[in-house]
């Protein structure tokens, strides 16, 4: 990518803005997905994502391009969601939050099944305590290795393993409860 040309003070470096825009376009869905899984409600998602990316922009110049961008972004999502939950009115996480409308598809039944799975998983995830949920998301959903998770969340690798193990059990119990609640087998 082109380097930043010298510009008068106060001007936006349009070259790096393009790079940031490309990153935003590429990773916006991932970040929103991470925020949802971390418990940010649909009604607040746009605001939280917007502020998150503004913060990301401020640190973009420091991003080490040798690292996976998503683990770097997940750290921002973790912090944003953590602060979000600290606000008293957000502490009671709402299950069954309506999701955005799915795009049109040639396989509406498959899309409906996926949508129901998403709803089920998102609801059950909220039963897993935040710290363990974050590790579970990074490891079992996003596919990061335990060392990558450990580095992103600043915890020991062994803590990652133990949290994944415990969180999986918590998630499975939450899924069973949610299915019972819905009258599903």
């Amino acid at each position: 990518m082109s380097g930043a040309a010298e510009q008068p003070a106060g001007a936006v470096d349009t070259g790096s803005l393009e790079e940031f825009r490309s990153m935003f376009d590429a990773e916006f869905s991932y970040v929103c997905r991470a925020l949802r899984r971390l418990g940010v409600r649909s009604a607040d998602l746009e605001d939280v994502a917007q502020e998150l990316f503004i913060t990301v922009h401020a640190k973009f110049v420091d991003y080490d391009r040798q690292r996976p961008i998503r683990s770097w972004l997940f750290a921002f999502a973790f912090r944003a969601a953590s602060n979000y939950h600290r606000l008293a009115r957000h502490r009671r996480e709402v299950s069954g939050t309506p999701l955005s409308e799915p795009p049109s598809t040639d396989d509406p039944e498959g899309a409906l099944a996926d949508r129901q799975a998403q709803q089920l998983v998102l609801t059950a995830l909220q039963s897993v305590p935040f710290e363990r949920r974050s590790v579970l998301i990074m490891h079992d959903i996003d596919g990061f290795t335990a060392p990558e998770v450990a580095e992103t969340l600043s915890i020991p690798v062994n803590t990652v393993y133990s949290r994944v193990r415990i969180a999986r059990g918590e998630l499975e119990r939450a899924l069973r409860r949610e299915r019972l609640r819905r009258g599903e087998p």
Partner: protein
Amino acid sequence: MTEDSLEPLDPELRRLLAAEARFPAESAATRARVWAGVEAGIAPTPPDGGGGADGGTSGATGAASGAGTGAGKLASVALAAFAAGGISGAAIYHASVEPPEPSVVQVPVPEGSQLSDAGAGADGPGDEAAIADSSASSDAGTAVRRPEAASALPERRRSPTQPRADQPTSEEPPAAEADRSQLARERAIIEVARAGIARGHPGSALSALDRHAREFPHGRLAEERDGLRIIALAKAGRSSEAENEAARFRDRYPNSLLRPAIEAALGSGP
């Protein structure tokens, strides 16, 4: 302990998590709205009376006063405070309209960790600029969810901040102005391509990208062009072409930020 010491994921759980990951998260319209707000938020503040003039407090206040309604407003205020406060724990929280919530406490994290990158806020003016005066960010129907915003969306690519009336104006060298003009033209074409992909019209995207390649073969946005071309080819069902171009792209741009999106497009196809 190693990865091998973890039991394999239960197949049913794996299936559910894979189905959850498949579902597309947000629409193009949502993405465009959020981008408009981000762009407004990262625009430099004006020199007089701007949000960044007196430090993180103003940045947080500016964000707070421009925030949306209800829960979104409080979320924005808290996040502005988190972004402005910095790892030293000096988060300053102002509620401009509602009674103040308890202070957002910065959790100290080790220096050098990714969390410290994410949480470290103010290095000074950079963060105030990043948070910016988000009240200057409204554009009906398109931009941020901030109905109280008063001023128009600033120009997308800001020219140098407006000089004061009592200061002599500076002129850009002709070469710099030509460079910005070319970048603007490149960007306009790339935007057409992006919109084509987002709307499910890869053919029109490819036409725009071909035009960019003709007019700006070595342009500053060549990387974006090449990356978008791969995505458009994949969306158009031209998989083998997409794969071939992706192989060249990986060699040419090994650290490109577009790679995850490209790999995802190659995996998902049309």
